[in-house]
């Protein structure tokens, strides 16, 4: 297993082509100040695997090799494994207060592992052995895999093959004895500029006309034809100068997403896990989505722990921590965070074995967790704003705090309780601002799928017909 420093060095050996702010990032993107906090956050997944205090969650035993591996490269073997995943995410998020990005590829690996088994069983293909070989390679080298599912989608009312531009969904454009050529793009790619591999999956259930879009494969993030356009985040320019105004200078906010373009990228057959089997695209999407939605009570639970702590500290620095309405709001924030965590644990412990032997979450409960997240994280943030006070939105520039002219004035007039330095008050407010800004909240809404996607699953998994029968029987209506 790599540690944090070895992970960083491994990224420097890649030739990943990344663009940001109108130009190509020279050298390793992981060393760019806008990207660095995300890299540090991902590095935490490597570092804590070597820490006695966290290794129980961060490591696992490979069912393929018997070797000790980083849990982010593991295939879940039991409900207990699924629960450990959730707990690991919470532990990590408590350390970073931010996204550490590595769960997406983790979930893509588990989804591909389970569905390829079923494809081979039904069709006599050998995709499952390929994914096992790939998995052994990933585990042995402890690589970070980006889960690459989301296509740009163009006109949402049209199927992939009906789009005016056929490249708006990633597709097969060529096939040879050696492998395939793919073209298209993947959007919102969490952590991809600091990953080693991308695991490409189809983005939606597909029909026969869309068979060319039924492609799953693994591609190095620096393969010829792959380019990444790194996304902007709220207040990202604060990373270019100063520390305090960033709020969370070490780890920043959410994942550091990119738009990844695939310009006729060659993939050898041994890294192809689906090629035209459109009937299985829906299963792959559903499996991945449920694994990924499982996570949100873990990582957002941990992020919320930090935000609740920040709100409590802000109230303390403001001198109001003993007020009953303040304590009630902290109780409400705790209720919401623990509700998210409970849902993630529930869908894990209700997990079941798939034909591949890997364990799969309860998809209904996993979708409930993520849907709750689209509401509850906003409410937790709202309460944090309430507790912090308006100062969270009106603080002066860090340079004004350091200025000999204005610094003493800010020290004097932005003081809270006399025991707390003004700078501490400003720092905690900046952290709250960072954790509740637009990018952080929008990720809670749309990460792992937008709320409507979860509602579709709630109806599909909700067993509505049986519920109707229960009601009819009690109402004395016979059919």
């Amino acid at each position, binding site marked *: 297993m790599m540690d944090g420093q070895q992970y960083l060095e491994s990224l420097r050996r890649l030739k990943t082509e990344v663009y940001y702010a109108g130009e190509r990032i020279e050298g390793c993107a992981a060393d760019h100040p806008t990207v660095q906090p995300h890299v540090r956050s991902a590095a935490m997944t490597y570092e804590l695997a070597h*820490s006695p205090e966290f290794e129980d969650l961060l490591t696992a035993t490979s069912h393929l090799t018997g070797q000790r591996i980083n849990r982010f490269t593991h295939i879940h073997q039991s409900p207990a494994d699924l629960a450990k995943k959730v*707990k690991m995410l919470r532990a990590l998020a408590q350390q970073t207060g931010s996204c550490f990005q590595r769960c997406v590829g983790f979930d893509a690996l588990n989804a591909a592992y389970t569905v390829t088994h079923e494809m081979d069983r039904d069709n006599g293909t050998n995709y499952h052995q390929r994914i096992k070989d790939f998995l052994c390679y990933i585990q042995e080298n402890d690589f970070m895999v980006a889960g690459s599912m989301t296509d740009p989608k163009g006109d949402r009312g049209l199927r992939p093959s009906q789009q005016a531009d056929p490249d708006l969904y990633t597709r097969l454009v060529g096939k040879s004895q050696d492998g395939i050529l793919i073209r298209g793009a993947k959007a919102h790619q969490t952590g991809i500029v600091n990953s080693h591999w991308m695991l490409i999956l189809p983005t939606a259930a597909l029909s026969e006309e869309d068979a060319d879009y039924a492609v799953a494969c693994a591609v190095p993030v620096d393969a010829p034809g792959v380019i990444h356009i790194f996304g902007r985040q709220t207040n990202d320019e604060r990373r270019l100068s100063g520390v305090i105004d960033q709020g969370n200078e070490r780890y920043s906010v959410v994942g550091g997403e990119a738009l990844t373009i695939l310009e006729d990228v060659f993939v050898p057959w041994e890294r192809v896990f689906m090629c035209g089997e459109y009937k299985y695209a829906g299963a792959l999407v559903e499996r991945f989505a449920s694994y990924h939605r499982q996570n949100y009570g873990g990582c957002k639970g941990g992020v919320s722990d930090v935000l609740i702590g920040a709100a409590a500290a802000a109230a303390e620095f403001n001198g109001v921590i003993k007020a009953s309405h303040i304590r009630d709001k902290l109780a409400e924030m705790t209720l919401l965070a623990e509700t998210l965590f409970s849902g993630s644990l529930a869908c894990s412990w209700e997990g079941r074995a798939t034909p591949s032997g890997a364990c799969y979450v309860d998809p209904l409960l996993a979708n409930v967790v993520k849907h709750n997240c689209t509401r509850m994280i906003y409410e937790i943030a709202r309460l944090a704003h309430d507790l912090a006070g308006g100062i969270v939105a009106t603080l002066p520039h860090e340079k004004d705090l350091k200025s000999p002219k204005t610094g003493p004035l800010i020290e004097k007039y932005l003081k809270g309780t006399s025991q707390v330095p003004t700078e501490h008050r400003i720092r905690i407010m900046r952290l709250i601002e960072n954790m509740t800004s637009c990018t952080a909240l929008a990720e809670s809404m749309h990460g792992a799928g937008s709320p409507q996607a979860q509602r579709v699953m709630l109806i599909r998994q909700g067993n509505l017909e049986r519920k109707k029968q229960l009601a009819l029987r009690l109402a004395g209506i016979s059919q």
Partner: protein
Amino acid sequence: MKSGVLTLQAGKRAAVKYCGGCNPRIDRENPARALARAGALLVYPGRDAEDKADFILIINGCETGCVSPEEYPGYRHTLVVRGESLNGRHCPESDLPEQVLDAWLKTRGD
């Protein structure tokens, strides 16, 4: 996050196994630090090839106790922290380091 640099002679080993720390109710490192300060050479089961301790301290951050002593047989003496409890008895967090230290010293006949 490592529990300090230890410079102790052989025979004073204490194995320490932590839970994963998803949401600890106590500072999990304090009891182990107390052992280290008293001269224990901390070793970590599964990590250290030289884990020849006859004493193991299992530290769970809460009463759920994800790490159970059954997973770590073979030690003559086992001490289990589960949040604010020590071997099944309530122990305030502030007292844990001292209680753990006392228990370890007794196992050594000190």
